[in-house]
């Protein structure tokens, strides 16, 4: 099953232009800040929102094409949706929620009993079958929503912020379960999230959506090692510099010069891993580093062993050093320090 969504949608001042293909058995995570158009993408594919231009198809079957006046209703698309906050029917039991898709297609209670039983077993819901949805925990309710969406074997599965409604402790468990169920499910999956961990642990490929546009697409390690926008860089915890290269020098947008190891020409992106940043007290220390700048500390986040030090100066940087180093240097917010980065530690790639 291949899902193709290539469309433009306009709603008031919001505009979204997307070109996305999801292959068979592929899980694509759509990552982006709030209001980027992630939910809109889901609503378009599910048939809850009509596009203004372009085309949406599954396996060559056109679902939405304004030019040819084609619009297939949500009920006929064969697209399963797990909504944010799950949207379970409160007046039905867990079992009837799961059976809803089969009943809607006209299956009698008796005919579908065996199939429902099998699905409830697979999703570990047998004990919860007679319960009312409002009595379930977040993780259980998520499982019911997933079972309900998958019971009719849709060719495409859409997950809208599957872990957002859960508390931190259940999130990990739900991710593990989701991973297992997504592996068993053979169709195309789009998973919308603003949590990079969801994307890292569940997806084969990541699509970054900002202001209604796809700004970056790729495998997990490509996204983390070569972010193309500040949003992505921040999300993956990397430093990103936009600049223009002449030889082994990059001039950033703010006019800061960075020495790099390889020779480049033209507009480039440069990433500096936080671990590659050295922080020292002495302003003119003699080091092998080609890059050093006077900086002021604006924040220190300690995780017990390592600390992320936020620096501002000619450019904004995040450095990661050990807690012991923070202690030894007596670093505090507001301190003036020198930050340096070896030219060989700066990764440069085309913009």
């Amino acid at each position, binding site marked *: 099953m291949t899902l193709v969504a290539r469309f433009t949608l306009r709603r008031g001042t919001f505009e979204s232009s997307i070109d996305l293909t999801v292959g068979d058995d592929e899980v694509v995570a759509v990552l982006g800040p709030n209001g980027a158009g992630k939910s809109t993408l889901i609503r378009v594919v599910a048939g809850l929102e009509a596009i203004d231009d372009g085309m949406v198809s599954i396996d060559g079957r056109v679902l939405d094409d304004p030019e040819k006046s084609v619009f297939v209703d949500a009920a006929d698309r064969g697209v399963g949706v797990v909504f944010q906050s799950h949207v379970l029917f409160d007046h039905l039991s867990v079992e009837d929620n799961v059976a809803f898709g089969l009943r*809607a297609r006209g299956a009698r209670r008796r005919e579908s009993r065996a199939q429902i039983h099998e699905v409830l077993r697979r999703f570990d819901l047998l004990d919860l079958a007679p319960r009312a949805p409002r009595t379930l925990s977040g993780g259980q309710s998520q499982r019911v929503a997933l079972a309900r969406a998958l019971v009719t074997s849709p060719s495409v599965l859409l997950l809208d912020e599957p872990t957002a409604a859960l508390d931190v402790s259940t999130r990990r468990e739900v991710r593990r379960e989701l991973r297992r169920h997504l592996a068993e499910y053979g169709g195309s999956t789009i998973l919308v999230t603003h949590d990079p961990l969801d994307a890292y642990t569940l997806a084969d490929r990541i699509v970054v959506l900002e202001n209604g546009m796809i700004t970056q697409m790729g495998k997990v390690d490509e996204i983390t090692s070569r972010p193309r926008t500040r949003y992505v860089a921040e999300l993956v915890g990397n430093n990103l510099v936009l600049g223009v290269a002449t030889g082994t020098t990059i001039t950033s947008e703010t006019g800061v010069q960075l020495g790099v190891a390889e020779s480049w020409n033209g507009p480039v992106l440069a990433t500096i891993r936080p671990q590659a940043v050295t922080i020292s007290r002495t302003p003119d220390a003699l080091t092998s580093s080609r890059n050093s700048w006077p900086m002021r500390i604006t924040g220190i986040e300690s995780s017990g062993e390592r600390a992320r030090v936020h620096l501002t100066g000619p450019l904004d940087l995040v450095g990661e050093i050990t807690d012991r180093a923070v202690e030894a240097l007596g670093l505090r917010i507001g301190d003036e320090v020198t930050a340096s980065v070896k030219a060989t530690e700066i990764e440069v790639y085309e913009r």
Partner: protein
Amino acid sequence: MSRRPKRRHTPIVVAVWAGVAIAFFALPFIGILVRAPWGDLPDVVTDRAVRRALWLSLRTSFVASLIAGILGVPLAWVLARLEFPGRSVVRAIATLSMVLPPVVGGVALFTSFGRRGIVGQYLDDWFGIRLPFSTAGVIVAQTFVAMPFLVLAVESAFRQLDTRYEEAASTLGARPFFVFRRVTLPSVRPALVAGLVLAWARALGEFGATITFAGNLPGRTQTMPLATYLALESEPERALVLSLVMIGISFAVLLGLRERWLTTALPEVRT
């Protein structure tokens, strides 16, 4: 920093006014209770004419609220969910009979569904249906004045309903009518029950439209309110007993349904 909230003070003026309101409601009932010829109660209640009026009232008001539900729910849905020109005019027409003096409603019904009415003459000529001075006419009059209560209650519930539930149902393959039947309608059940009760209460108490349109034929169109009013002229004690019976029935229904009313007043909060 947390400070214990001060004990909530009841504004005395408000409490006094509320007391006046309660007294205003309660006094008339106390009046009936005090003056009622309790000794006559068994005789009057077992009186054949009274039993017929009571039975007629219960039957017609029940059927009227049922019809109000069958016709009113789709109307409420259309008013709540469909955008069309003149929607506010349609809503005004649908609720006009609620603010109109019931006698005027009766006159209006007479000119439309009466034997010489614009619709009534064809009902008579073609189907031999004569609504005036029939039990069916009583039901028509009651439905006419009672339906707006149901429509307003259910419309506001449809309007407040979270559409995501219907969307989820449609992504699961449900056709619009299946969604309506299995998701939309169950979700507004508290409002529907409240609307039905309101409509039933209004139908039970119907007087003006009924006497104008359906007349006052014992056993056929003479409902309890009509019987009570007529008794007041000739046998006031009898009127008191009849009133007592109706108060009893209405009060019992209100008490029995208080849970439903509460759930309507406090819609479930979801995040």
